[in-house]
């Protein structure tokens, strides 16, 4: 059973960092209209670590992409840090992303022709700052994720775990408000996945970032402060989920 307009709003005193109101996403596929996200309401406070789970096609990546500003809603409002990003033009949205969002991908998505250092530096080139400041920020980010000794390595010369660390450094280097991760441990072995999740939690706590990840992995989701489940574009009540998970008890005659 799913709920419409489920209230996942927090009770914190200040306004939440992310406010989704009747957030809807539809797109055309041939003659059919697909609705991966349907009138979703959600509040995410600053400093939250939210894990989005659900089966394939449930809309969790769509929600993540909308929050990251790389996709645009078809209906409803998405207010982040007081800005309704659903009303921003394409170029304004790109500028907004460069300031407010760091994205960590499942397959790292590093630029293969740039070194680890240059990959981390890439988002900073969108900001006005001196080369010295830029260098310091890149150094700090790379030290935070533990790859300061891999400056001149190209992605092909790094392990999967190291590549993901570079990707995380790239995501945090601009000091964004929100860090989003789409299956950030999906391509890693268990040990590396655990290390990456430890790192992300630590960064989230130390730097006060709001972290939202999409995952299929319950172990990764267990790191989150909150886990939200989606199904057919809607959030599922925790109680409903618990009922589904409860073992069936045979009734006595």
């Amino acid at each position, binding site marked *: 059973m799913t709920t419409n307009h489920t209230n996942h709003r927090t009770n914190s005193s200040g306004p939440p960092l992310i406010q989704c109101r009747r957030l809807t996403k539809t797109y055309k596929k041939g003659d059919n209209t697909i609705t991966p996200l349907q009138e979703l309401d959600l509040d995410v406070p600053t400093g939250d670590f939210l894990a989005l789970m659900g089966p394939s096609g449930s809309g969790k*990546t*769509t929600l993540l*992409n909308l929050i*990251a500003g*790389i*996709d645009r809603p078809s209906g409803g409002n998405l207010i982040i840090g007081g800005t309704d990003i659903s009303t921003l033009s*394409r*170029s304004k949205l*790109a*500028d907004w*992303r*460069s*300031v407010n969002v760091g*994205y960590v*991908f499942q*397959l790292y*998505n590093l*630029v*293969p*022709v*740039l070194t680890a250092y*240059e990959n981390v530096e*890439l*988002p900073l*080139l*969108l*900001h006005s700052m001196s080369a010295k400041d830029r260098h310091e920020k890149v150094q700090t980010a790379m030290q935070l994720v533990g790859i300061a000794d891999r400056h001149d390595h190209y992605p092909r010369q790094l392990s999967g775990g190291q590549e993901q660390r570079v990707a995380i450094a*790239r995501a945090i280097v601009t000091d964004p408000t929100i860090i989003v991760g789409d299956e950030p441990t999906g391509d890693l072995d268990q040990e590396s996945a655990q290390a990456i999740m430890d790192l992300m939690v630590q960064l989230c706590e130390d730097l006060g970032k709001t972290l939202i990840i999409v995952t299929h992995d319950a172990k990764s989701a267990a790191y989150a402060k909150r886990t939200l489940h989606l199904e057919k574009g809607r959030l599922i009540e925790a109680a409903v989920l618990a009922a589904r998970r409860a073992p069936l008890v045979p009734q006595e005659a």
Partner: protein
Amino acid sequence: MRLLPFAYAVRNLGRSPSRLFLSVAGAAMVVLLILVAGGFVNGMSRALRATGGEHNVILMGAGSEESVERSEIEAGVPGVLAASVAGVRTRAGVAYVSPEVHVMLPVRVGAAARTTTQSSGEQAAAAQGSNTASMSKPKGRQVMMRGVTPTAALVHESVSLTEGRWPVSGADEVLVGRMAATVLGVAEIDVQVGKAVMIDGRPWEVVGRFSAPGTVVEAEVWLPLADLMTATKRETISCVVLTLDPYNEETGEGADFGDIAAFTKTRPDLELVPMTEREYYGKLANFFGPIKIVAWVTAGLIAVGGLFGGLNTMYAAFASRIRELGTLQSIGYRRLAIVWSMIQESTLATAAGGLIACAVGVFMLDGLAVRFSMGAFGLMIDETVIGLGLLTGLALGVVGALPPAIRCLKPTIPVALKAV
């Protein structure tokens, strides 16, 4: 708008050496073709333009203005002109009046000449024998022969003897131009001083060589006027070339073209038509206009073909990294910044090709002799042609990158991020 680092565009070139090679080589071929077409048109125009002397007037037979070869003038006319026309340049008592015969004749040199000589000897020895040898003798190449007197050296200022001496009348001697070997399709060594060329079935000795830089005259063979008239069995000359002293208002000396035109009108019995030498060669240049257009159209069509090839190559290059393009957008780079980087990448490749082509053009093609019906000229790859070639290279880069870049950036970011 913030741009992607230039290093990104440069290093992307190295991702696929084979694609890079195709882009550079394709651009080089197209630019080279543009250089050849430009050099051809330039060279032909300059050769025809430069051939006419600034103060020279050419007098031809009435009704033969289109071609000096068809023109006929009485042999005594040059004497009349020298005596009657005021303002003709004179030095040390010699008037700058050059009677000339212009005629295209087949000329054989080297192996072809030896074969003919040998076969003639065999025929004589065999006396009435088989004429198989003479039937198989190779045909010579048509060369512009100019029968001249020594005053020709005065009238045609661009001509200078570079080797040997002036031919003596009655001794079957000729002068050959610097580009005569090209027209004849033989090596330079075959027309060196001392060698023989076969004209009208008999050998003529090369006694000198001349140059006339940048003009079609360089492709001609000059020989004494009387000898050529005898060889061609003609009693008339083709034209008279005069050099005028520019009219000086203060002294009232000299003459201009109008004076010559007035003279020919007062002497209709001579049946002469005057034309400045520049006008004559200018008309010839117009005659070759369609050839120039064909050269440009051909180059243009091949450039368009090259452009389509470039589009294909660049699309393959960009399409292989659609996910990366999505990532750059997710970081915050605008599409225009990414398109600009792609244009940089493509333009770097085509500019490299253009530079290679220009180097080949300047060091290997510039001055390369090309035959045409008037003789020969050198490809003239000057700054304008080089500039055009480089611009073509750059345009290939920009135009070749835009459609593939726009197409590869068309998917939304989420779709691009899912690309394989």
